[in-house]
Structures are given as structure tokens and as C-alpha cells.
């Protein structure tokens, strides 16, 4: 019996809250090297997040959605993918898309308002960052369906939040996935809050995972702040999607139970709707010290290794910030680029008009408004 075939409320855990291997659990088969890489990526994500929030505060970047607390779910799930698999992110999966090949400076550029920041780097299997909630879910279903029709071995992993499960697109996307039995994994980052609305007010159902049952496939809850559990569950779901056993369905919904430590975005003030006590309680499950404790216990990292990693991620993030801030404001012609494969005449005329305006008034005057 696979780890995902269980009741939707039987949450999978591999590590205790303190970071010890649970007596009833198996650690995933991951080399020490991969484990350290996973840990490093999570540390990097945390540091990136702190710096990004402070850039916004200093007016060096626009609104930014922080991910602290969610690094374990993002990184470990992305680690479970094979080279050919794809992810469909929302707007908060900075660490997941990094794991799949996006550079940090590109993510920064996106939140600095540059179109180029949302252009997937070549050879990365990442769909675009999606802002309208839940709309990426049917896309993942469709891409998985196409992969099945073309008989490839690709699996599509789609991320979304707890709030997204209330949108019609969530239901339509999962229903199609069930009906056409497509190789997709629906990964719900249940961070307890959709801005100010708590998970209990999003649905009267006791779990989100159980929603999969209604679409005829497996739904499983995992401790989303336990990276080893997330890895195991996602890996099992991906393998089932790729190569189902007799009687198994391809799609799976994973509900990764976790917590957003910070604000919804830098424009949000969580003190209006939630208690600091609650935040502190969840911080005890922080995925980073938890994985670190495990790795130290296994003798995989020690003080020196942790310190080296910390220095290393600080440098990588600082470099990314420098690179992003060194990029000039995009040329105004970029407004007109990539609207269509071929620019219609009317757009050409409007572009020429913009050029005349710039010649006549200068950029400073146009940017003043």
C-alpha cells in the first residue's frame, strides 16, 4: 500500500515536531548530498524572503508575497520531481520555482515590476507565475492530459493555496483530471489563511484532501512543515501519476498543512485578524530547524557545515539583489512586445505615437504622473 492510500485526515509525518525520525516512519531514500541541498535551498529561501520583505520596506521593490514557514513544502515537493516534470506555480512559490531553475534575480525583477521577470528561463519546466487564484489548476490538468495523449512520461505538479479550493476552477480542474485520468498532482499549500480568512471559513469540510474523493482519486494530508514527509508523499504521487499500478488512478491531491509566518503580502497587516500566539505555536514546527536537527542527528551536517551554508546563501541572495537592481527600467517598447506573434498595424501606430511623445516631452515628464 502506498503512502498516499490512506484516509484523507490521516496526516503523513516522517519527522516529529522536534526533528526526530518518527518510530513508525521511514526516511525517504535521499543521498546525504541531496538532503544537504534540500536544506540549503530552504535556508536560501528563508534568507531571500527576509531580504525581499526589507527591499519592499525600503521602497526598492513593489508588493511582495512572503513564503517563510512554507519552504519545506515548496522545496521538498519540487525535489520529488523528475527532470521532465513540470510545475504550475501561483505567486508565492519562489522557492519551488528556484528549485526548478529560476534565478533569484529574476524573481526579484518580477516583483520589481519588470515583465522579463515572468519570462520562464529556457529549459526550465515552469509555467508562468499565476496571480488570479486557482486559474492555473485547469492548465495543469490540460497539460497533463496532453502529455497523456502524446504518451510522454511527464507529470504536472500544480501549486495553489487553501483559499483556491473555493474557486470554480479548482473543482473543474480536478474533475477533468479525474474523468480523463491525467498525470497531475494537485499540491495545496494550506497555510491556514487566505489573506484574513481562516481555513475553517473556506469550506465546511474537515479536510481539503477529502475533496479529491469526490473527483474519484486519492487525496492525502501531509505535514507541510515536515520536508521529509512532503518529499515522500509527493514522490509517491508523482510515480503513481507516471506509472499507475492496476486499479490506481493517476491524479492525486496533496494537502500540505503548514503556516504562513509573515503577512499575506507586504501590503497586508496580519495583526488585524490573527493572534501572535498562533504564529508562535506554528513556529515550533518551523521546517528549517526541524530538518537541521534531523541532519545533525544523522551526522550529515555539523556547526561548520551550517555556518558555511549560511554564508553561502547570504552571498547568493546579495548577488541576486545586486544583479536585479542593476537591470535598467525596461524599454517602453516592451509594452508592445509579445502581445501577438505579429504586431498589428494599429499597435505599430500606437508605438510610434509613444515614441513621438517621448521625443517631444522626454521620459522624465511622461513618468512624472
Amino acid at each position: 500500500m502506498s503512502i498516499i492510500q490512506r484516509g484523507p485526515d490521516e496526516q503523513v509525518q516522517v519527522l516529529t515536531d522536534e526533528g526526530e525520525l518518527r518510530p513508525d516512519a521511514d526516511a525517504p531514500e535521499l543521498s546525504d548530498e541531496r538532503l544537504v541541498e534540500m536544506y540549503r535551498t530552504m535556508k536560501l529561501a528563508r534568507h531571500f524572503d527576509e531580504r525581499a520583505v526589507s527591499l519592499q520596506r525600503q521602497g526598492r521593490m513593489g508588493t511582495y508575497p512572503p513564503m517563510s514557514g512554507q519552504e519545506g513544502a515548496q522545496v521538498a515537493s519540487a525535489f520529488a520531481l523528475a527532470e521532465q516534470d513540470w510545475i504550475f506555480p501561483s505567486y508565492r512559490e519562489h522557492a519551488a520555482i528556484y528549485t526548478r531553475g529560476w534565478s533569484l534575480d529574476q524573481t526579484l525583477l518580477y516583483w520589481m515590476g519588470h515583465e522579463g521577470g515572468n519570462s520562464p528561463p529556457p529549459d526550465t519546466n515552469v509555467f508562468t507565475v499565476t496571480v488570479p487564484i486557482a486559474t492555473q489548476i485547469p492548465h495543469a490538468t490540460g497539460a497533463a492530459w496532453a502529455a497523456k495523449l502524446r504518451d510522454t512520461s511527464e507529470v504536472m505538479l500544480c501549486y495553489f493555496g487553501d483559499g483556491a479550493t473555493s474557486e470554480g476552477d479548482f473543482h473543474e480542474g480536478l474533475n477533468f483530471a479525474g474523468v480523463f485520468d491525467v498525470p497531475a498532482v494537485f499540491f495545496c499549500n494550506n497555510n491556514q489563511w487566505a489573506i484574513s480568512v481562516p481555513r475553517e471559513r473556506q469550506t465546511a469540510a474537515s479536510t481539503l484532501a477529502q475533496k479529491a474523493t469526490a473527483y474519484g482519486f486519492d487525496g492525502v494530508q501531509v505535514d507541510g512543515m515536515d520536508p521529509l514527509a512532503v518529499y515522500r508523499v509527493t514522490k509517491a504521487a508523482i510515480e503513481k501519476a507516471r506509472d499507475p499500478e492496476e486499479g490506481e488512478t493517476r491524479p492525486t491531491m496533496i494537502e500540505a498543512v503548514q503556516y504562513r509566518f509573515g503577512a499575506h503580502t507586504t501590503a497586508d497587516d496580519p495583526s488585524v485578524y490573527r493572534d501572535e500566539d498562533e504564529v508562535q505555536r506554528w513556529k515550533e514546527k518551523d521546517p528549517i530547524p526541524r530538518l537541521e536537527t534531523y541532519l545533525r542527528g544523522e551526522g550529515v551536517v555539523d556547526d561548520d557545515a551550517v555556518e558555511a551554508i549560511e554564508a553561502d546563501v547570504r552571498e547568493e541572495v546579495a548577488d541576486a539583489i545586486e544583479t536585479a537592481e542593476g537591470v535598467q527600467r525596461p524599454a517602453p517598447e516592451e509594452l508592445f512586445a509579445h502581445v501577438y506573434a505579429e504586431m498589428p498595424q494599429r499597435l505599430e501606430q500606437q508605438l510610434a505615437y509613444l515614441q513621438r511623445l517621448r521625443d517631444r516631452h522626454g521620459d522624465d515628464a511622461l513618468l512624472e504622473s
Partner: protein
Amino acid sequence: MSTDTASQRLTLVQAVRDGLYGELERDDDVLVMGEDVAENGGVFRATQGLHEAFGDDRVIDTPLSESGIVGSAIGMAAYGLRPVPEIQFMGFIPPAFDQLTSHAARLRNRSRGRYTCPMVVRAPYGGGIRAPELHSESKEMWFVHEPGLKVVVPSTPHDAKGLLASAIRDPDPVVFLEPKLIYRAFRESVPDERYTVPLGEAAVRREGADVTLITWGAMTRPAIEAAEAVADEVDVEVLDLRTLSPLDFETVRTSFEKTGRALVVQEAPRTGGLGSEIVATLQEESLLYQEAPIEQVAGFDTPFPLYALEDYYLPESDRIEDGIRAVATYEI
């Protein structure tokens, strides 16, 4: 200052809140619903304090579902309540599009007047606040194009409160679009007491004899600025439409027949915009008064860009001044 009634200097978003407060107080059937509108007071604080004042049954946080919000508001409205759903940003109205256009707009017509849909869908709209993707659109024409819906866009705090009250009391569904660029841009004296500003009436913001400038929403301010900037050369009359549907064409025509010259300033993409409808109607009905081609200063026919380029997208005073001069100096 000697006034009979007390007033406060409010921003536009505070005036919206004040308007909602007044209507919730006036009529038990009125209720506010949407994402993050209760305890959080809305992401722009347009509903701040309302939950505290009116409680769980009148100010309601819903699940994250625009179709659910608008669809259930339609059922409530048909039943006899006066729901005022908020959609967090105009860019997130699309999941509710079917409900708005296939049902809210048509319920009266379909049921031959037996069922009606008196509700107000509020949404912040427009660009200029350095927001992420899909938080800056001006898609008013989606709804202007839909018979059965009214579309209202305030441009001042005083109007925001009065127009919102009218919209809530209106027997038909209203899409109430709040230009968030000017949510907090300036304050204006707003009476504490309830009042209404009628729907379907444009306002003359500046009287002038030479050119008629037609605009609405956040563009009203740069339009007035531009009119002042060229005041030595051209005397511009600035009209703020306030209600986009049904349009107060009478005020537009009267002004145009006086000046013979006009331009439309809109933030929305030019093609298929309200400006085009205004130009077409003026040519049909007032051709013989026309002394120059009617100009349009509009958003480009491109997606609204991420914020690094948004200032190039939005019409601003220089562009508007150019437009005024082109219209004013044209000679046949």
C-alpha cells in the same frame, strides 16, 4: 465656515466606507459581502469598522469565490435583500462574469419584470499604484456593453458617497468601480448625513468655451490639471461622466454644441472604448457643430504592464495637453 450640517474631510475610500455605513444603517436589507471585508475591513480598508458595527449577518467574509459571491448575491437580491458584494480588484471579476452578464443583467428582462436584482458590485479599478499583474485593469467596457447593468465611476469623495447611496437604492444591478489611484490622493468635505448624487448625470468640473474634454474616474484630475495648464491658450470645459451606463449624453452634446471641439480621455485601452462610442454619437447627432476631428487620449491596446512601465501606459497631463492643443488649433 457656516454650514447647517456637520461634515468631515474624507478621502475617496473613506467616503465609500461612510456611504456603506449610512446605507447599512438606513436599511436592514443592505448587507456587505466579499473576500476579507469583515474583520480585515477590506484590503483597501473600504469596509473598515463595518463588521464591528453591524455584525456577522450584515458584513460577511465569504470563501474565495467570485462566482459564488456574485451568484449568491443575485439570489439574495431577487429574494429582497440589497447585497453589496465587493470584488477585491476589478481584475478578479472574470470568475463572476457569467453571473453578472448572464443573470444579474438579465433577470428583470428574462422574468418580464417579476424578478429583479438590486445589488451593487463594488470593485477597486485602474492603474497607477505599482501593483502586481491583474491589479490595474480598466475594463469598464465589459459592463457598459451589457444591457441591464449600470456602471458608475466616482472621481471625488463627495460623489463617491452620494453615488454609492444612489446605486444601493437603485432597483437595478450596478457595477461600482472605484479608481484606486485616487483612493487616498486628496480629501474633500463630505457631509456626515446621508445624501444621494443621482446616477446618470455627468458633472461639469470646469466650464469653458473652446474645447470639451470628456473623462471619468482617475483621469479627471490630470484632465483638470491639463485644462488649467493651457488656460492661457484654450478655455477647456471638463466633463466628468460619473455614470458610464446609462450615459448622460445630453450634457456631452450640449457642451459639444457650444465648443464644436472635443477630446475624450480614458485610461482603458482605446479600441472599443467608451471614447469611441462618444465620438460616434457626436458625429451622428451633432456633426454640423463639429469644427475639428475629435481626439482620444487613451490607454494603449496592450495588456496593462507590470508597474515598471505603467507610467508610460497611463495618460498624463502632457499627453492630455497635446490632445487639447491638437483639437483647439485644428483648422479646416
